[in-house]
């Protein structure tokens, strides 16, 4: 399988505090990698490094297989602009996902309408972004992340601000996208039970890499058991069991 992204010996310090220590892992084409870990484990810092939002770090990351920054879609935790009166329609927000200035206006309009129909937000296109609910907003930002047809979609705890009923629906939507269009997924989360049932690989982070490998082998990791204790490991193993259950 081709690598899309490779992180090599990446370390980040905030002053004297070490946020990430010697992190190495990779994301393959058609991968679904869940990055999990407790609060303060460095998940968001790692994501910001990969996305170019943190520029001061040791180590490196490499985009493989002709992956460009423009090929990465990014879905934030919640609405990035909290100004409810910000004068922008849903259509205008989705449009910001398109960086190709040469794109034909008609083709762009068609793409926005089709994608918004697929995500169930077609009727919201002319609404002001600040008037939407949390679930509607996340669909809009998902549309913004997908409109340029990314090869890799990075999501930072995308359902943390959503109600539980919408969470399952949201992950089904992502799974469908992954399966049908082959978009590689990196999902950052600390919600083991509901999120990792869809992931193929797991990176458990606690400033260092505690575990990196397939979800199915997670129970065999003594390092993980030692680091997070039997209770949390059991939660991860339930994920494994769930995976088996789905495949059976």
């Amino acid at each position, binding site marked *: 399988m081709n690598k899309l992204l490779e992180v090599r010996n990446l370390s980040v310090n905030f002053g004297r505090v070490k946020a990430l220590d010697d992190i190495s892992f990779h994301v393959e084409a058609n991968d679904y990698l869940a990055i999990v870990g407790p609060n303060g484990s460095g998940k968001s810092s790692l994501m910001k490094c990969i*996305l*170019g939002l943190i520029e001061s770090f040791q180590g490196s990351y490499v985009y493989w297989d002709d992956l*460009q920054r423009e090929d990465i879609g*990014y879905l*934030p935790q919640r609405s990035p602009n909290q100004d409810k009166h910000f*004068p922008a329609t849903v259509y205008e927000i989705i449009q*910001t*996902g398109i960086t190709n200035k040469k794109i034909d206006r008609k083709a762009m309009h068609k793409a926005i309408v089709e994608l918004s129909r697929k995500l169930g937000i077609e009727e919201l296109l002319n609404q002001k972004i600040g008037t939407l609910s949390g679930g509607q907003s996340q669909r809009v930002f998902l549309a913004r992340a997908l409109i340029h047809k990314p090869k890799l979609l990075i999501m930072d705890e995308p359902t943390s601000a959503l109600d539980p009923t919408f969470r399952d629906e949201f992950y089904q939507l992502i799974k469908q996208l992954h399966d049908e269009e082959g978009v590689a997924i990196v999902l950052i989360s600390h919600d083991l039970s509901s999120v990792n049932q869809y992931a193929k690989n797991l990176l458990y982070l606690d400033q260092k890499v505690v575990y990196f490998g397939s979800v199915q082998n997670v129970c065999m990791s003594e390092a993980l058991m030692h680091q997070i204790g039997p209770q949390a490991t059991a939660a991860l193993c339930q994920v494994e069991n769930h995976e088996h259950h789905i495949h059976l």
Partner: protein
Amino acid sequence: MNITSIFRLLSYAFVQRALIVGLLIAISSSFLGIFLVLRKYSMIGDGLAHVSFATVALALVLNQSPLIISIPIVSLASLLILKLSEENRIGGDAAIGLIASTSLAIGVFITSVSNGFSVDLSSYLFGSILIIAQSDVYLSLILTVLIVSLVLVFYQDLFAMTYDLDYAKVSGRKTKRLNQLLSILTAITIVLGIRVVGTMLISSLIIFPTVSALRLSNGFKSTIVWAVIIAIFSVLSGILISVTLDFPTGSSIVLINAILFGVISLTMKLKGGSA
């Protein structure tokens, strides 16, 4: 004052120059205003106006055109404010305060040590249409076309950056360069605007039309269109009132803007809008 006398006033070259320059300033300031107001950089206009006061004083001492001296220095000051505010140790407002107060001090210093100016400095402080030369009209036209063209070319990038700076960076947009572009365009607009409304009031031309337009519109583009309409109306009517009733130009324009803002806010509140 009747229609005939207004038409007679409009036949004077200095009034025509003022109206043309006023129209151009209204367009360029309202094109930039939305990006500055929504990014909480409204006061950069005020800070740069203080810098332009110092540069005007310097130009008058050197007997040079204020526009030629002011544009490069105010542009550099805008980049310095940006650089200082990007450093985590100094916030944007503190950076503006530092540059503005230092520049004002320099301006006052130059004024006090000089032997007097051939042009009244208060014309530049509060605006006067009498100081607008024909060359100012041409320069204003060129710079306004430049400002509007650049905003239109980089519109999507500037909008993306205004809504969500992190996403703009993630999507590969050159946000540092865009910030620098926005700062320089703001500096040029400020320098152009001080002829009509003066250094003390120029920031209001950037802020007022945009905040009024924000109450009228849902979308970003439509807010810019409303801001342009409000700015053109307030500047042209302000100049005409100033000429016909012999009121100060800058304060006439700002007061019309303030009245428009009040009327729009009240109307939208009564309608149950966002104001």
